[in-house]
């Protein structure tokens, strides 16, 4: 699944570690989502969307 996470994160000047802390996941998990190696669960996708004040479909696309 493609996503806009790297762009959204960069626009806010956040590192993967910063984002991981905010979501309470590991940095490896953020990296895996950004590179498309892992599709997050709905609760995590909602948490990401809430953090960036976006809708899920604005961040993730099939």
């Amino acid at each position, binding site marked *: 699944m493609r996503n806009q996470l790297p762009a959204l994160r960069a626009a806010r000047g956040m590192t993967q570690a910063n984002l991981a802390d905010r*979501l*309470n996941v590991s940095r490896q998990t953020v990296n*895996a989502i950004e590179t498309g190696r*892992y599709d997050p*669960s709905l*609760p995590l996708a909602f948490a990401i969307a809430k953090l960036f004040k976006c809708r899920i479909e604005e961040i993730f696309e099939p």
Partner: protein
Amino acid sequence: MAQAEAAPVKYAGRSYLLEISFVTALYVAAVWFRPWLIAQAASHEMKLAATVLPALPIWGMFLVVWRYYRRIDEFERQRFLEVIAIAFGVGSCLVCTYSFLADAGLPQLAITWAWPTLAVSWAITGAIFHIARR
């Protein structure tokens, strides 16, 4: 699952290392003192308790692994379960293969070898996956 209210995921590995080191030390101590405790046992019940003593830290290890699993995030859990499934499959096959070889004359090993075999298989599989996923 997002874990905003849970303990920070980033400390899961550190907590695991501390806890597993502690129960491993308990296990070594239990194995070390076991013969002395058996020799000192005054009753059959005391001897039985001394004999089974090293099994308690083994249960502790299981608890530590479970606590680690509960602390990590969803992606880490997926990888954890993948490694454990492959490792225990390989370990079970190794134990089974050796049991057939033992029928052909190789030394019979006690059933207590099953757990170290699975543990070593788990450690090796984990290390291989860790390197491969970099």
